[in-house]
């Protein structure tokens, strides 16, 4: 028996053990996050605090993924949380229903997009920083991780770009949502096809739907698939992929074989880029394509250049969508302020962050007990308003967003053009797309 053979055996033994231990540890850790009891927290330095004067103040805290795969979204949403607090304070504060005026103090931490960090930080925000209300993080699993703390300490929380499967809802009493939730993500695109495309092209009824299998993509794609079938679309191909997949060509080959007129994929930024590159490589020609929500980022266009032209995506908000609003700053004012402070055009995550603030602001204005989470939650569950972001109306019991509708944008000559809804100033839709060989 040689030394090499012994080493190989050892390697196989240890590697097998390492894989098994890693899997058990990961599973155990994941389970523990859902069932863990509150523990003492270790102090961390907040990444952002808006200081206040000596007036009455309302303290709002939260986390965002300032690093990690969704850091772009986290930074945008955090920027707008800060912008909202700044604008409120510049205008003298929130004139609450109890007759007092409150300035906003904001504390934001970086959760590093790790769900295991979130309960600890939210407990610190509540117990040590003594915040009055909470802003939710970005991304469903992070939002889910806030729930045990929020419900235990009975603190009002307003979710931002964060959604999960309604099946996971468990009678939570202190959370309301800002965005159109994941199950309804695909509805705007499907509605647009049904009402704007199908009357001129019957072939548009034949669609393919795919999606990743994580908390967000699975919900958006799975519910979107059901919605498409209910609506009467002929779904010629449907499949899911592992959200960490590095190669989609096997699935795309089947999409190509199914010959859909339109291809919709519920993905995020990374798989949207991968999908577009591989669609081109496989010469998969469709009349319309949605590669995923990541299509909305300018980086999507920068990465793909001319091959991003014509791609559509749903969006919670976009520059160019105009609502007849009854509350808050106009879209123009928001755009100007955001560009002044951050030197970039805000994306929908930024707008969502601002809307988080507007919800708390409006609820405090309407409440006669504005520092009480129970009171604010009740008001936030009953009130309605239309801001530059669109309609806010939630189910009073569950807090799920029911009023806000998404729009659809399309990349045209390097710019995102609003193509749905028609009531929000939609422009011309490029349809059908040219074949890859003609681009």
């Amino acid at each position, binding site marked *: 028996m040689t030394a090499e053979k012994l080493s*190989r055996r050892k390697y196989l033994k240890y590697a097998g053990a390492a894989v098994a231990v890693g899997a058990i540890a990961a599973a155990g850790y994941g389970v523990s996050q859902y069932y863990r009891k509150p523990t003492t927290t270790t102090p961390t330095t907040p990444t952002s605090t808006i200081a206040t004067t000596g007036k009455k103040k309302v303290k709002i805290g939260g986390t965002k993924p300032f690093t990690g795969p969704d850091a772009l979204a986290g930074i945008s949403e955090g920027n707008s949380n800060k912008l909202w607090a700044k604008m409120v304070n510049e205008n003298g504060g929130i004139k609450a229903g109890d007759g007092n005026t409150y300035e906003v103090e904001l504390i934001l931490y970086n959760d590093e997009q790790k769900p295991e960090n979130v309960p600890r930080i939210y407990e610190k925000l509540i117990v040590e920083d003594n915040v009055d209300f909470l802003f939710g993080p970005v991304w469903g699993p992070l939002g889910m991780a806030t729930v045990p703390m929020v419900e235990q300490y009975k603190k009002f929380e307003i979710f931002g770009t964060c959604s999960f499967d309604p099946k996971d809802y468990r009678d939570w009493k202190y959370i309301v949502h800002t965005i159109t939730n994941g199950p309804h993500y695909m509805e705007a695109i499907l509605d647009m096809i049904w009402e704007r495309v199908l009357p001129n092209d019957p072939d548009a009824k034949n669609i393919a739907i795919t999606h990743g299998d994580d908390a967000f993509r699975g919900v958006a794609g799975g519910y979107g698939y059901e919605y498409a079938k209910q609506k009467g679309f002929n779904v010629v191909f449907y499949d899911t992929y592992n959200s960490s997949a590095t190669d989609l060509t*096997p699935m795309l080959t089947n999409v190509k074989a199914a010959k859909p007129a339109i291809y919709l994929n519920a993905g995020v930024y990374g798989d949207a880029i991968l999908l577009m590159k591989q669609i081109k490589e496989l010469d998969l020609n469709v009349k319309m394509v949605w590669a995923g929500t990541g299509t909305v980022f300018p980086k999507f266009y920068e990465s793909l250049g001319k091959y991003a032209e014509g791609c559509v995506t749903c969006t919670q908000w976009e520059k160019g969508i105009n609502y007849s609003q009854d509350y808050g700053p106009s879209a123009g004012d928001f755009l100007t302020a955001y560009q002044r402070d951050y030197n970039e055009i805000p994306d929908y995550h930024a707008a969502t962050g601002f809307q988080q603030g507007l919800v708390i602001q409006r609820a405090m204005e309407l409440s006669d007990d504005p520092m009480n989470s129970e009171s604010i939650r009740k008001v936030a569950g009953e009130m309605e308003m239309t801001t530059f972001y669109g309609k806010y109306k939630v189910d009073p019991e569950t807090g799920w967003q029911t009023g806000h509708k998404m729009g659809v944008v399309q990349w045209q000559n390097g710019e995102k053009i609003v193509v749905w809804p028609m009531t929000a100033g939609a422009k011309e839709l490029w349809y059908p797309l040219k074949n890859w060989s003609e681009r």
Partner: protein
Amino acid sequence: MSLELLAQTIINGLFIGFLFGLAGMGLTIIFGVMKIINFATGAMIMLGAYVGYWTYTYWPYSAIPGIIVSVGVGFLFGILVYQVLVRRLIGKPLLTTLLVLFGLTSILENSMLNLWSPNPRSIPIDFPTYSYGLISISTSRVFVSIMAIVATILVLAVFKYTTFGRIIRAVIQDKIAATLMGVDVNRVYTLGFSLGVTLTFLAGALLAMVYPFEPFGGLPYALMAFVVVVLGTLGNPVGCLFAGLIIGTVHSFVGSYWTLNMSPAVAYLIMIITFLLRPQGLMGKKE
């Protein structure tokens, strides 16, 4: 139609299989030479991709300079990592190696995060695609595959026909005897480790031509490389390439004829079956 689907499935599988094989080859050479498992493979693949990408941003006319720079940086990086870190791990318990190289992974990933942000990157090189019905062949994939084959042939040629290769093989067979014959084992280890890292960087640079990548995106490739190494026999570069093609093809068939969702699971199942039924791998001799 079904024959076309079959053909495209095989083509897809072979294309990604070459990348899996190349990623595994770096891992297997390092293990073959010094019995160290490079747990930082995933981060090194991503680093290779970033070096290729970074070069491309300065010379956006061709991917070739990016590949060359990535190979060069990989070789130097391998020497550096070996001299600073890995040299001290030889002969240490596997757990020490595992923890130190996981630590290196974390350092590399977070450095990439700070240098290049968390955004997935992609090299927008405009290679043409040729289609016949359902079958499409992208020239970028063909290029990547050719590069993988050339790299394998070069590695084999170095191992078989050069003095350096003979010395490496001598060290693999019997380190003490090689030392007694005047071989500087530390030097061989340095070059062996660097060669492995170079191949890992090359895999990254080629990957960047066809896939998006981000600082923490190396893990799926590293796991696939481990599967390929186990299946193709530890320390055997040719076995690695063949195993890569097998795993790539299986991945493609599972995705095309079942669901892509199950593709990684089937690959790991193959690894487990290999552990149980043929632990020496496809190219190894029964103990």
